[in-house]
């Protein structure tokens, strides 16, 4: 039984956690929140100095190799600090789509600048997209970091294209977004010219699997951070002459958080491992991880506010960053009910 991190995986985790804890500070994140939700120096350091951006992308296409387990380890560490980075749209969704479904030329043309962080890509999914040849018409309302993107990976349920953000027919409207660390943009395509990815089905599947696992891992890191920070507060805050963590009503909520987090941890690494191993459980696992970890995060972030009392409701405190990120993760890339319905279809034997 080896369902545990290897030494290399532990090292990657330590490196990533140290990097985000030191650099993705509250001050820096808040500066990014006041701008476009990206901490540029952090992004540059992440991509160039640490070279973590290439993890989960094959070495043959310029990546660092390894798989979704390692990608999840990094996303978990980033999520623990609510880091303001375009990792999800640019790397987990777009770079994965190109690396898996792009032609050799497309990989060579796009991946180096995506992995170096020079180009930020946004992921636009519109099930009702209409394509006349490669002329695309459609819209997506909630493109993460879409306002900062120079490139879009545009997918329907069957096709996948690359579209330049400044191409004719592309309109990008930045939306004031509850989670300011990952603002949305509305992207409208009116006959915009796309470059089709060589294998759209493979591209879409890879993007979705990596996207589900990545946000689930982020949620896991965030949920654990909510618990850790609340535990620290429970020790130091005194009321009625005792640490509030000694009250059973308080303790039991902390315990409930840990119970969910432990399951979320199993979910995330099961899913990542199942995809990496090509297991026939992979599809079920990525749906389970996405909805379970997202719900866990929201529960923990809500508890974090409640268990901090008034201070947890202030703008100054970090709790709302976790709370808002948690809410966003619950609804993005398919809400919990949708993911559970995919699982219901499978276990009831209704799949076509």
């Amino acid at each position: 039984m080896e369902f545990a991190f290897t030494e290399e995986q532990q090292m990657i985790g330590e490196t990533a956690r140290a990097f985000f804890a030191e650099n993705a500070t509250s001050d820096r994140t808040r500066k990014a929140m006041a701008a476009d939700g990206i901490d540029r120096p952090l992004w540059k350091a992440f991509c160039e100095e640490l070279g973590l951006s290439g993890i989960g992308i094959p070495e043959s296409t310029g990546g660092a190799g390894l798989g979704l387990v390692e990608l999840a380890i990094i996303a978990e560490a980033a999520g623990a600090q609510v880091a303001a980075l375009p990792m999800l749209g640019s790397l987990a969704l777009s770079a994965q789509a190109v690396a898996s479904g792009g032609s050799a030329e497309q990989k060579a043309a796009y991946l180096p600048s995506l992995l170096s962080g020079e180009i930020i890509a946004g992921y636009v999914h519109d099930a009702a997209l209409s394509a006349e040849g490669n002329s695309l018409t459609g819209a997506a309302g909630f493109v993460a970091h879409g306002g900062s993107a120079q490139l879009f990976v545009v997918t329907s349920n069957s096709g996948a294209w690359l579209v330049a953000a400044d191409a004719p027919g592309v309109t990008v409207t930045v939306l004031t977004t509850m989670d300011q660390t990952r603002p949305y943009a509305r992207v409208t395509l009116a006959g915009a010219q796309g470059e089709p990815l060589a294998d759209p089905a493979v591209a879409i599947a890879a993007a979705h699997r990596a996207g589900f696992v990545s946000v689930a891992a982020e949620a896991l890191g965030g949920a654990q951070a909510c618990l850790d920070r609340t535990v620290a507060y429970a020790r130091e805050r005194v009321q009625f002459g005792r640490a509030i963590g000694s009250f059973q009503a308080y303790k039991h909520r902390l315990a409930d958080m840990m119970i969910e987090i432990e399951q979320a941890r199993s979910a995330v690494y099961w899913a990542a491992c199942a995809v990496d191993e090509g297991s026939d459980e992979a599809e079920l696992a990525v749906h389970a991880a996405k909805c379970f970890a997202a719900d866990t995060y929201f529960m923990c972030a809500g508890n974090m506010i409640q268990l901090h009392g008034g201070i947890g409701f202030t703008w100054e405190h970090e709790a709302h960053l976790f709370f808002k990120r948690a809410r966003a993760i619950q609804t993005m890339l398919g809400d919990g009910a949708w993911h559970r319905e995919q699982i219901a279809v499978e276990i009831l034997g209704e799949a076509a």
Partner: protein
Amino acid sequence: MKLGFSAEDELFRQECADWLNAEMAGAFKDIKGITKLTASPERRKEWEQRLGEAKWGCIGWPEVWGGRNATLAQQVIFAEEYARAGVPGRVNHIGIELAGPTILAFGSEAQKQRFLPDIAAGKTIFCQGFSEPGAGSDLASVRTKGRLESGEWVVNGQKIWTSLAHISDWIFVVTRTEEGSKGPKGLTFLMMEIDQPGIDIRGITQINGDAEFNETFFTDARCPADSMIGAVGEGWKIAMGLLAFERGVSTLGQQMGFRNELDEVIAAAKANGAARDPLIRQRLAKAEIGLRLMRYGALRMLSATDHSKIDGAALTYKIQWATWRRSLGELAMDVLGQGGEVTEGNEYEWDTLPNLFLYSRADTIYGGTNQIQRNLIAERGLGMPREPRGDV
């Protein structure tokens, strides 16, 4: 990080499955698929002996005591295949999982020779005498008294929830041997033969109509002085050591049983159309997710190599599975509708799913209630201050 077992372990799995399936198709066909713990006790004692004879009774034990010296992975696999083959639960699970390991760890050489081969051979069935009417969650407040009298222990008091005492041969009992002592001090761990005039066993009928648990009364019950494990006053240490032996060996086997229960709920929902209800579909999916996460939680726990660290997966496992199963029971009844509230015939006996609904109310109580689990998680896992003790 890997999901599965090694190729070598998978070969062992095949060996287990082949043997178990052959037995369940052969001489023990009649007990295959029994899930009720109290059903067919005599045949199940014979089954214990069959397991012992073929050296499948206690595979994790050293060979000298009738085991196979099996690795942790092999023990887990055997438990999983055991459940998969539809073999009924072990009537001697207390003997093989608790009494035996305790004797192995703390017993004298003579005690090992006296008990271990017979437990492994399925000839000595053990039950456990911990809880008392006044010592439930607060296990250390036992009052059953033991005193030494001319080379014998004499025991007076009452134990409760002694599962399967009525079909057992021996009971281990935590007794208060130091007059006036309180809490974990002054306790001694004794093993007593059940068939004696001083021990009286009365069944407790449960909410599902079955009677798996008992009250056990001790009135000048006796055992020899050397029937004690450890020293006088070490009872708490031994009892706690015993509870720590469960390192998750039975988890995947237990989950195989849960799998069967969930599959039955899914089949019922498909059969009666409940599976078309979007809310039921969501709950079925949640149940499926919960079961899968239990498996990978158990595998994380079993893969852990550093046992000095707090293992979150292990610490949260009990409340996780108990709560999952209780919810499954409720889902099963919502799938069945009012049909689940009636049973055919005149006996108050229930099919698997209504029985699950009733029985699973015990899961969140025995072995540490959900409330006690939350205390443990917060205190041991998260370092929160301990609950203060009252002095009543």
